[in-house]
């Protein structure tokens, strides 16, 4: 077991890569009553076209990663939620563009709960009947999201930006794609992406790291897996241009919802973590609640407290999302865009850069109070080749010049897309 102490953060992380390829991380939190564990596969909604190790290329229906996540909770002996409940733990799971995460929190019977987590994720049980039954539930989940204007405007923007890259496909799929899913397809996906060498286990809480690691090693040594191999993910060529400059949709909303953003050059992301932090700092400096622009837009009643920004990167994509609800989408987009283009010309002032850096470091340290956030963010950054516990150092090493360069690269008028949801003319 190797250790990585982070004296500045007063944390020590323990790590081991097991013989079957599984990466295990343990972060002891002395004094904490709760233990939180995540078991993550590097597999999400964008992995819909791939070549399994030593196999043939497969194209699968939209929403299958999410469907698989639902079905993992069913075991021959019954519903796994019930098993966790017996052991006083609450379990959950979620699917994103590039990850599927299974998790539990518990304050007692940690070993038994850990065994259950490893067991159910490594023990698929799909039948024609249980696959069929799940379809009705997932269609209701899709319908629930379809009624949600925040989700629709968010996804509308990604759909406007990307022409071929599967990031534009709704994580849950559509009623049609979900109905076409079979148990054979689920097994294909499972066998490809749930191999231990494609997975990470992260455990944080008031645990004994030695005992916990031994337990996991023993559990894994007792299970047989075929040798892992390289999974080839196939992505169609994505053009630089956005698909639509603007997409609009009608749903009942009190005020129009408007999001827009810039699509960066598709393809492999170099130095993804540093680029992500630089981009987030840049956006916060220009658009955060203490920026002059934010205050002007607020005073002009163009934005509400919900106005915000984010920056997303993953395999083959990176883009920003800016906006919120507004009385006038066109004016909001044009004023914010212009402010970004002007700032790209003039540069961000150094005092604002320093204050924003300080704010980001403070927010990071606050986040480190939450075992849930640590586990989720650690795995996310690791998939990008970064280390969550070194983000303060990355923030400290960013330079104003770098941030300004990031802004000039990012805010390009011909890479902008807009998504609007507003009420129909009733």
């Amino acid at each position: 077991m190797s250790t990585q102490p982070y004296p500045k953060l007063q944390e020590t992380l323990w790590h081991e890569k097991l013989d079957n390829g599984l990466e295990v991380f343990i972060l002891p939190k002395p004094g904490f009553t709760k233990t939180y564990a995540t078991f993550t596969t590097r597999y999400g909604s964008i992995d819909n076209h791939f070549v399994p190790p030593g196999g043939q290329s497969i194209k699968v229906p939209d929403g299958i990663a999410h469907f698989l996540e639902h079905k993992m909770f069913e075991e021959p002996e019954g519903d796994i939620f019930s098993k966790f409940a017996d052991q006083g733990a609450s379990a959950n799971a979620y699917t994103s563009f590039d990850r599927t995460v299974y998790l539990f929190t518990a304050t007692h019977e940690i070993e038994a709960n850990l065994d259950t987590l490893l067991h159910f994720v490594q023990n698929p049980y799909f039948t024609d009947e249980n696959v069929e039954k799940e379809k009705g539930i997932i269609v209701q989940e899709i319908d629930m999201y379809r009624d949600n204007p925040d989700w629709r405007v968010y996804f509308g923007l990604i759909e406007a930006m990307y022409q071929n890259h599967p990031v534009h496909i709704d994580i849950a799929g559509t009623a049609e794609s979900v109905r076409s899913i079979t148990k054979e397809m689920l097994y294909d996906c499972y066998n490809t992406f749930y191999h231990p060498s494609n997975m990470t286990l992260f455990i944080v809480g008031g645990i004994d790291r030695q005992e916990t690691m031994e337990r996991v090693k023993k559990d894994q040594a007792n299970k047989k897996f075929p040798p892992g191999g390289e999974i080839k993910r196939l992505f169609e060529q994505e053009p630089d241009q956005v698909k639509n400059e603007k997409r609009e949709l009608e749903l009942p909303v009190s005020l129009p919802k408007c999001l827009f953003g810039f699509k960066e050059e598709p393809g492999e992301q170099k130095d993804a973590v540093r680029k992500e932090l630089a981009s987030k700092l840049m956006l916060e400096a220009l658009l955060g609640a203490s920026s002059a622009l934010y205050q002007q837009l607020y005073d002009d009643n163009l934005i509400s407290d919900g106005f915000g920004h984010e920056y997303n990167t993953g395999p083959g994509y990176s883009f920003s999302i800016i906006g919120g609800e507004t009385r006038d989408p066109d004016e909001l987009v044009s004023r914010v865009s212009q402010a970004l283009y002007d700032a790209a010309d003039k540069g961000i002032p150094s005092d604002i850069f320093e204050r924003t850096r300080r704010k980001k470091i403070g927010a990071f340290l606050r986040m480190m109070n939450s075992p849930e956030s640590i586990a989720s963010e650690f795995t996310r950054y690791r998939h990008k080749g970064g280390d969550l516990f070194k983000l303060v150092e990355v923030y400290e090493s960013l330079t104003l010049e770098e941030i300004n360069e990031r802004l000039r690269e990012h805010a390009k008028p011909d890479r902008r897309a807009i998504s609007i949801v507003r009420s129909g003319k009733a």
Partner: protein
Amino acid sequence: MSEQFQRGVQGRLRVHVLPTKRFKTFAISLFAGVPLSEDRVSPIALTPFVLRRGTKSYPETISFRERLDDLYGAGFGFDLYKRGDNQIVQFRLDIINDRFVSVTDSLLGEALSFLGEVLTAPAVEDDRFRGKYVEAEKTTVSNRIDAIINDKIRYASERCIEEMCKDEPFRLPALGTKEQLAQLNASNLYEEYRRWLQDASFDLYVSGDTSLDEVLAFVSKSFKLPEGQPSSYSPPKLRSARGEVQTIVEKLEVGQGKLNMGLRVGATYGSDQYAALLVYNGLLGGFPHSKLFINVREKASLAYYASSRLDGHKGIMTLQSGVEIANYERAVVIIKEQIQAMKAGEFAIEDLRKTQAMIVNQLRELQDSAFERISFDFSNVLSGVERTGDSFIAEIQAVTPEMVTAVAQGVELDTIYFLRDRKEEA
């Protein structure tokens, strides 16, 4: 769970301090509550929005927010909600512990001084609030009131409660009403604010590496409340369900129907039966092993979500599910059967044990979150009971099937609310 709150009083302010070294931050919450009333709900709702625009020392909103950024990006925010028949304003500040950064002044002292000023020394001119802030925040609150319709799940839930409680102050939304909002201006709002400072119940909580004495010393310098003693909360009035269940159907552009039910439960947080009631709620619809989830979702595949929520401060329970519109009646029948089964004592002893284990786990877990510990303790203050995490766990573990069946007799359906599409008959 050896950490204990230390209690003190500073004039009208009750001060509760939880000394602990487990977290990287100081968590601060200030609760201010008054009985919900038609006359005051809107001015009190608007008050925190105006207070967060500027203080005596930082009268401009930008300087106010820059101050927060300079305190290492202190997390600052407020919430407005109903607890029992009270309207509560909660301010929150989360600020990193000095030991992680190099600073000269105590960040806790700076944060309390800031919060004290937000509450008691706002930006005023000529004995009234700044007109510009009041007008802008009236628009913000008005937009928020309108925005409830955007999230159909939340909208349906609030409408159900409004219909069930239409003869009580509890029908009022915590954000107030647009009609009253329109009557407010910089002068009359300032008067209402002064009155609120004089008669609200104030509780200040601080968790972190500090002591009661240290906090009291900071507070005496920065909280300039009117003279007096702390005031306490009065218990909620319990009501029984209407004689005949009312059914409300409302039409809107939705794809999925949102089914809500409101029930009276005959006991509150302060009652001796509260532990049994919480277990009842868990058995009926609090968890994935509960009756609603199993019967509405897993067996009938009618819904993605089907759950119950207990509001112990008010003594009501709400059930919610998203169903296909054509399945409305089937869902109602299944849900009513579950309520009936609880009355008849038809639940498995294993499910009771699971529910107890899950609730105990939640109670243990909240020890790891400073803000959750604060909320738990504040519930005691509100209800005039003295529960600790440990004593409440013991109460939950002592619940018997007979006790659950006994509280089930007091649970009565009052209102069915269904939000459906505008099409005629599905």
